[in-house]
C-alpha cells in the first residue's frame, strides 16, 4: 500500500509550494503584520520542521541504495535543523543571530546532497536532470537565506527565499520514476514506466 516514489515527490512538492506561498505572503506584508497572529509566526518554520520529520519515513521506505539513504537522511536532518532554529528564533528562545545561518546551511547541505548522490549526467533521464537542477538551484539559492540572515527585513531576500521553494516545487512535480527529459533518455536507464 506504499505510494510509488514519484507520488511521494509530488506530495513533498505540494509542501514546498505551500512553504513558498507562506514566505511570499510574509515578504509582501512584512514581518510586523505577518507576526500579528502567533500561529502565523510559527507557520512556516513548523511546516519546514514537519517536512523534515516526514522525510525520515521516506528515507526508510523509499531509498534503494546507501547513497540515496544518506542523501534523504541529510535532507531530513537539515530541514529539521532549519525549521527548529527558525522556531527558536521566532519564540525568542534562540538569541544569537548566528542561528539564522541554519537555513542557508540547510540549503547548502541539501544542494550538495542532490549533486553528490546523482551519479549520472544531466540528460541521462528526467530524475538525473532534476537532481542536478535542484542541487544547483539550492546551492545558488542559498544566497537568499544568507542575505535574509544578514538583513532579515530585506524584501528582496525574502522574496528570493520564497522563489527557491517555488522552483523546487515545480521541479519535484516534474519528477517521474523513469522518464525522458527534453527528448533524451539513456538506453541504460531502462523502459519508461508510463
Amino acid at each position, binding site marked *: 500500500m506504499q505510494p*510509488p516514489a514519484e507520488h511521494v515527490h509530488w506530495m513533498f512538492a*505540494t509542501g514546498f509550494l505551500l512553504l513558498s506561498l507562506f514566505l511570499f505572503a510574509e515578504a509582501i506584508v512584512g514581518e510586523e*503584520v505577518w507576526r500579528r497572529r502567533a500561529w*502565523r509566526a510559527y507557520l512556516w518554520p513548523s511546516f519546514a520542521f514537519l517536512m523534515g520529520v516526514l522525510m525520515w519515513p521516506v528515507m526508510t521506505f523509499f531509498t534503494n541504495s546507501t547513497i540515496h539513504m544518506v542523501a534523504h537522511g541529510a535532507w531530513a536532518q537539515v530541514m529539521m535543523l532549519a525549521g527548529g532554529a527558525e522556531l527558536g528564533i521566532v519564540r525568542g528562545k534562540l538569541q544569537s543571530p548566528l542561528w539564522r545561518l541554519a537555513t542557508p546551511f540547510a540549503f547548502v547541505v541539501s544542494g550538495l546532497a542532490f549533486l553528490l548522490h546523482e551519479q549520472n549526467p544531466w540528460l541521462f533521464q528526467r530524475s538525473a536532470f532534476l537532481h542536478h537542477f535542484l542541487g544547483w538551484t539550492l546551492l545558488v539559492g542559498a544566497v537568499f537565506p544568507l542575505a535574509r540572515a544578514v538583513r532579515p527585513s530585506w524584501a528582496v531576500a525574502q522574496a528570493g527565499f520564497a522563489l527557491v521553494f517555488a522552483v523546487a516545487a515545480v521541479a519535484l512535480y516534474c519528477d517521474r520514476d523513469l522518464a525522458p527529459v527534453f527528448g533524451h533518455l539513456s538506453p541504460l536507464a531502462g523502459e519508461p514506466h508510463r
Partner: protein
Amino acid sequence: MSSQTATQVQTRTATLAWRPRVIALLGPLTVAAGIAWAILQPWRLTLLHPHGQGFWFLVVEPPLLVVIAGVAFHTLVARTLLRDLEES
C-alpha cells in the same frame, strides 16, 4: 499652512495599496495555475481516465494538489492576513 504631511501619508498609502491585492491574488493564481496545468497536460489528471489506475494514481494528482494548495492558502492564511493588513 503646509499640507506636506498629508501628502506624504497619501503617497505612503498609495505605495502600500498593492499589498492586499497581491495577497488576495496569490491563492486564486495558484488555483488558476493548477487548472491551466490540468488543461495543458490532461493525462496528469487521472480522474479524467480512471480505468486501470491504481489507488495512488487516483489519490495523488499533481494539478489537483496545486489547486488544493491554492484553496488552502487562500482560506486559511490569506483571509486573516488581509484582515490584519486592513487594520494596520
